[in-house]
């Protein structure tokens, strides 16, 4: 599959939040205003892209030669945890405002399914290093797209009368469901029609 094909697949067709449900916790938690949604999206994109490459390298050059493929889950989660720690330190140094806005959700990227998910999917799909990088980047971009759209919807929802029991999380889930309905329009036949397979 071409690189553009991979990007379209993970941004639209297999959108991590709306189709695969990976990374729902930060999606619901951080999408209350668009500023922190952008920050969260950028942090996740950076981590998924780097983690894809690093996990691919760990798997191919460390686990496979020693026949330790069964350690995949443990080694990937440790690599990701270390990476997130590093990103956290960089953001705290570079932009204290962003660090304040993301608050407790930055350490939570470690337990964000999207990061571990894309690392495992890369291995399952048999991507090479560059393809893994693009898949990770696209997964992060898809996450960012969905969380930014969602934060705009939720900012509008704040000024809309919603029944009391539906306020907050329930209406966010239902809005996400309607968005997922729209994303169903992106289908794998899109790739065939664009001659990207």
């Amino acid at each position, binding site marked *: 599959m071409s690189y553009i094909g991979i990007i379209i697949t993970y941004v639209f067709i297999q959108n991590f939040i709306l189709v695969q*449900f990976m990374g729902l916790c930060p999606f619901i938690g951080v999408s209350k205003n668009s500023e922190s949604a952008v920050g969260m999206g950028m942090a996740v994109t950076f981590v998924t892209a780097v983690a894809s490459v690093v996990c691919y390298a760990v798997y191919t050059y460390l686990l496979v030669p020693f026949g330790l493929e069964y350690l995949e*889950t443990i080694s990937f989660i440790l690599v990701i945890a270390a990476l997130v720690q590093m990103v956290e330190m960089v953001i705290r140094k570079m932009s204290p405002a962003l660090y304040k806005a993301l608050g407790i959700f930055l350490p939570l990227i470690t337990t964000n399914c999207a990061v*571990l*998910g894309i690392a*495992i999917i890369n291995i*399952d799909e048999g991507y090479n290093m560059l393809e893994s990088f693009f898949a990770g980047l696209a997964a992060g971009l898809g996450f960012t797209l969905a969380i930014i759209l969602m934060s705009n919807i939720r900012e509008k929802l704040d000024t809309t009368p919603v029944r009391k029991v539906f306020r907050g999380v329930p209406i966010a*889930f239902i809005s996400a469901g309607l968005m997922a309905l729209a994303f169903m329009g992106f289908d794998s036949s899109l790739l065939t029609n664009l001659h990207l397979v």
Partner: protein
Amino acid sequence: MSHMKELTKGIFRENPTFIIMLGMCPTLGVTTQVFNAFGMGASVLFVLLGSNIFISALRKVIPDSIRIPAYIVVIASFVTIVEMVLHAFVPAVFNALGVYLPLIVVNCIILGRAEAFANKNTVLDSALDAVGMGIGFTLALSLIAAIREIIGNGTITLFNLSETQRFVITIPGLSESPVRVLTLAAGALLVMGYLKAFFTWNSERRAARGGRV
């Protein structure tokens, strides 16, 4: 008596899925069939039980500053065990759960219980807490899966190991013209939204009556 409370609180009052809202990804990802929900629930129950017991037993040994990485390693080890066992003995379940199986590592329920409960309580209480939370999680998953499968496909799959070893209840009327969208991604999010609203309504109604919430 207090031991019993640790066990039952996870099932209703502090249900991990509907009240605390943890571990959403597998909840929505695998609930297209009731049988998948059982498989996921059992896997999470096992990992939760193992990690809670282990972490509770080691709670005085693990230094505070590196507790999170230590917890993650313990959890990842148990997930690897589950992966290998399922792969070897029930490959049908292994394939149905797919990428969501290794993702149990990052399921917030397990790390959440380790951090909030197991590192402060005794081994027995932690084990009971894990069993309660695991059952609560399994019940929640089964409820969502049942709603999605009944309306979306008109069937209830209770058992599905292979083409010959399966037990599927077909609901007349619905199975001919099911509401397909509920088995798709959008349906999962919609069902979750309505269920969450229902549980909010339910707990508010109980609070208004002055009863125990």
